[in-house]
């Protein structure tokens, strides 16, 4: 197509530019290399100082199925997903019709001119461009041409939205780790497309960008890599894992990066072991074996893996073995929606296992908090001698977030109550499961301890203080009551919630990746006249601040991403006296929560 099609109709607020406040979605096929293009756009905008968030909506597929990447720019710093998008770039014939229909009125639609479809909308600006031409003309080897082809829309958008080309180059330099050849090839395509757009397209929509200064002091990170790095700073010594979406990048984040941080020149041997297990049962089994042997051990998985790990988690809780388990939640039950986000494992994980079991859950709400809980989880697990779950989700774990820089651990490692030879020498009597300190936490030893009184027999069967097999009812009850007491002690080691409170009647409780949507929704609610307070949970069991918050409010909305309002159920169990105050607002469509949904859900209740 020689001449580009430009249609100009019904511009909103004609002449008035919309700057740094819109969403754009790129529709491509999975496996086509579009992720590099999308991240380049995202990073360039971030480097321009504009608050951005990027969300990848991808299928459970390697190649060919449709995938969408949405970038939201928000001068106000809102990072949640919006359901609407003003700019759509269509590169996939399979979804062309729906992509065209999805553009917000007054928006802009860009499409590769190899896609031959009728344009049936007159309320938006439409631009076509020769998407394949630039790659063909470039120096890219034939095998890579399809991948670099996606850089065409980067160049076109750079011109049309006024994205700084120098920032695009910076983004590419980061992506390709400074390797000049791929940078040059990709930049070549972008520049050619930019020049082409400059010569051939005339802008008729109002959306564009401008440099700001709102991203200083932030980094761009995904929660999984952040958690992996946090674990490395936490002194991770053993990791076993089994591949599963969306958790694989936690383990890969560890295995790809740990040597950089932990291997020192002239060091005698590694300070860690990593095993890709044959399944999740083996992954948790290895981690439990390593935890028993005195190592900071972890595994990472998602819902189906958690189900498989159940029996071992019960064993570790009952035999009191420290282990850290990351659950990057996706939509269940069953295989569910493997590439969609959810907070659906809250109830099942809290009570995971048969018999009376409750587990510690940490609830990171940002990528930098994933880093923090990466190291903190080991301290808590070893202190409490029990499994600790870090409940992330696909949106937090796999998407790229603007987040605060990672902070070096502000407390020394807590190895908990572990005794070595010299400790035992000072004790006339040591029993593995005896509650010496009255906090429910016994003292443990680890294999390799050479003291002749150091050994004990770990077992999932009934045992007495001495770890000896016992079927006596008194031993069983006493031990289970001690474990209950230990769980109460755990509250003292939990991260406290983040509370924003100014004496309003209505409170919101939420956790995890919903944070961005809640913060934005509170602004909208306030604009409509409803002031709200907000408590973001960071751990279960709950610290006293949670009860205080509920007590101080007339109504508390518990916002979460599942069907049954799982955290609300736990809150009601813990605070039965406040059951009528707690109102569940739960959404489970697999998509990251939007502020509009939260606002409307609250307003509906408040009517």
């Amino acid at each position: 197509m020689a001449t580009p099609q430009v249609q100009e109709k019904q511009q909103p607020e004609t002449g008035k530019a919309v700057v740094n406040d819109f969403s754009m979605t790129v529709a491509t096929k999975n496996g086509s290399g579009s992720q590099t293009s999308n991240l380049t756009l995202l990073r360039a905008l971030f480097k321009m100082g504009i608050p951005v968030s990027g969300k990848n909506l991808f299928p459970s597929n390697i190649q060919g199925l449709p995938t969408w990447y949405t970038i939201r720019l928000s001068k106000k710093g809102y990072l949640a997903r919006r359901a609407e998008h003003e700019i759509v770039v269509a590169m996939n014939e399979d979804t062309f019709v729906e992509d065209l229909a999805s553009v917000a009125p007054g928006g802009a639609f860009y499409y590769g001119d190899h896609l031959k479809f009728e344009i049936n909308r007159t309320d938006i600006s439409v631009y076509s461009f020769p998407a394949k031409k630039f790659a063909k003309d470039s120096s890219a080897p034939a095998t890579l041409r399809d991948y670099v082809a996606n850089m065409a829309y980067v160049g076109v958008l750079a011109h049309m939205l006024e994205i700084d080309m120098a920032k695009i180059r910076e983004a590419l330099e980061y992506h390709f780790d400074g390797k000049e050849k791929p940078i040059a090839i990709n930049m070549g395509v972008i520049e050619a497309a930019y020049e082409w757009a400059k010569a051939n397209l005339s802008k008729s929509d109002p959306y564009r960008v401008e440099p700001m200064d709102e991203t200083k002091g932030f980094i761009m990170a995904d929660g999984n890599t952040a958690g992996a790095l946090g674990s490395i700073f936490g002194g991770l010594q053993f990791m076993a894992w089994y591949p599963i979406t969306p958790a694989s990048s936690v383990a890969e984040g560890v295995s790809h990066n740990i040597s950089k941080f932990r291997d020192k020149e002239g060091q005698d041997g590694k300070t860690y072991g990593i095993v890709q297990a044959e399944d999740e049962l083996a992954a948790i089994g290895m981690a439990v074996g390593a935890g028993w042997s005195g190592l900071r051990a972890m595994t990472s998985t998602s819902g189906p893996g958690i189900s498989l790990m159940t029996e071992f988690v019960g064993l570790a809780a009952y035999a009191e073995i420290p282990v850290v388990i990351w659950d990057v939640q996706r939509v269940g039950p069953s295989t569910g929606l493997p590439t969609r986000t959810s907070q659906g494992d809250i109830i099942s994980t809290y009570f995971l296992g048969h018999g009376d079991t409750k587990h510690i859950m940490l609830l990171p709400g940002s990528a930098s908090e994933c880093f923090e809980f990466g190291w903190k989880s080991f301290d808590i697990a070893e202190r409490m001698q029990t499994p600790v779950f870090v409940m992330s989700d696909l949106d937090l774990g796999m998407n790229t977030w603007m987040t605060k820089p990672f902070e070096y651990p502000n407390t020394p490692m807590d190895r908990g109550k572990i005794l070595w030879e010299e400790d035992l020498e000072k004790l006339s009597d040591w029993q593995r499961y005896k509650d010496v300190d009255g906090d429910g936490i016994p003292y443990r030893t680890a294999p390799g301890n050479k003291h002749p009184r150091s050994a004990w027999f770990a077992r999932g069967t009934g045992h007495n203080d001495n770890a000896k097999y016992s079927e006596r009812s008194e031993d069983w009850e006493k031990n289970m009551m001690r474990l209950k007491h230990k769980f109460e002690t755990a509250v003292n080691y939990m991260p406290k919630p983040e509370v924003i409170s100014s004496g309003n009647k209505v409170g919101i409780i939420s956790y995890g990746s919903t944070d961005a949507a809640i913060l934005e929704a509170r602004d909208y609610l306030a604009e409509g006249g409803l002031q709200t307070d907000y408590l973001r949970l960071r751990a279960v069991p709950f610290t006293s601040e949670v009860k205080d918050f509920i007590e101080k409010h007339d109504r508390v909305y518990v916002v979460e991403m599942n069907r049954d309002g799982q955290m609300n159920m736990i809150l009601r169990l813990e605070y039965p006296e406040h059951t009528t105050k707690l109102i569940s607002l739960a959404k489970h469509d697999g998509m990251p929560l939007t502020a509009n949904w939260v606002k409307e859900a609250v307003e509906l209740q408040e009517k």
Partner: protein
Amino acid sequence: MTETAQMPNVQLNLVGLSKNDYRGAPTTLCAGCGHNSISNQIIAAAYELNVVPEEMIKLSGIGCSSKSPAYFLNRSFGFNSLHGRMPSVATGAMFGDHRLRALAVSGDGDTTNIGMGQFKHIMRRNVPMVYIVENNGVYGLTKGQFSATAEKGLRLKYQGLNPFTPVDVVEEAMASGATFVARSFAGDANQVKALIKAALSHNGLAILDIISPCVTFNNEDDSRHSYGWGREHQEPLHDFTFVPREQEIQVGEFPEGTTKTVTMHDGATIVLKKLDRGHDPTSRSAAMKLIDDARNEAVLLTGLIYVEPNQPSLTDVAELSTNRPLNRLTEADLRPDKSMIETANAMMF
């Protein structure tokens, strides 16, 4: 302190311990159970090899056999884990202090029914440990159901006829690349002990399939897991002598030309005196043929079937320190320096 008997007539080994120091709690298994005699040989082997009990760990899954680690080596750390999942626990546990020896006990149900997957993978990874399968063809604790090693056509009182082909532990081990494969019979105490000793000095996964009759549920003379059948059909591959590293082989101790000596990774040697079959246990193809022939001939071939002493073990592959075990490392070894936080942030964008 666990008391070491100091009475003058008690014999102490080279590390100053008596056989009592290697015992465990009294067994709760049935009288006459093959597992008890294996426990006794584990005690004898550890005592004779001068193993310091704190330098050994013992592991098991669930079942009669898996109860037995409570009945030996009281002074060793133990882990009675989950049904069929001992291999994963052992794999992780070996990273704690890889200088320790590990001995695991499992049963035929624990290994070849519920635990087949983990059994195969622990062999692939060549985890340095002894893995004993106390093999009786039935489930004892749940009262006599067939396991996957029960022979086809076996008839038991409550279960009726077993119509399915059995799993052969040794064949599975060979197929999965195990680096030490042996079979024995609980009734042959000396051979069991010699094989345990050899297995304990192997740097890699040593599989010992020990036919261990269940006196309660599967001990009819026509059953291949019975004392009667085992005694009748056992055919040792060699006369077997294990010589620890500390003890040199005396010239002329073994008649020349009729022996094969295998030097283990730790310097110990296994001297195999050839019997009728003249089997070379370092030949994989000979081992495979031997197993096949034995099955066709309906004999219980016992002895060292296959050994490959020089494959790197899992902890070798993991490049752990030779001196300092992982579980002795401290914050200074494990937490990157403060300046490294900048590196972490710079890795992001």
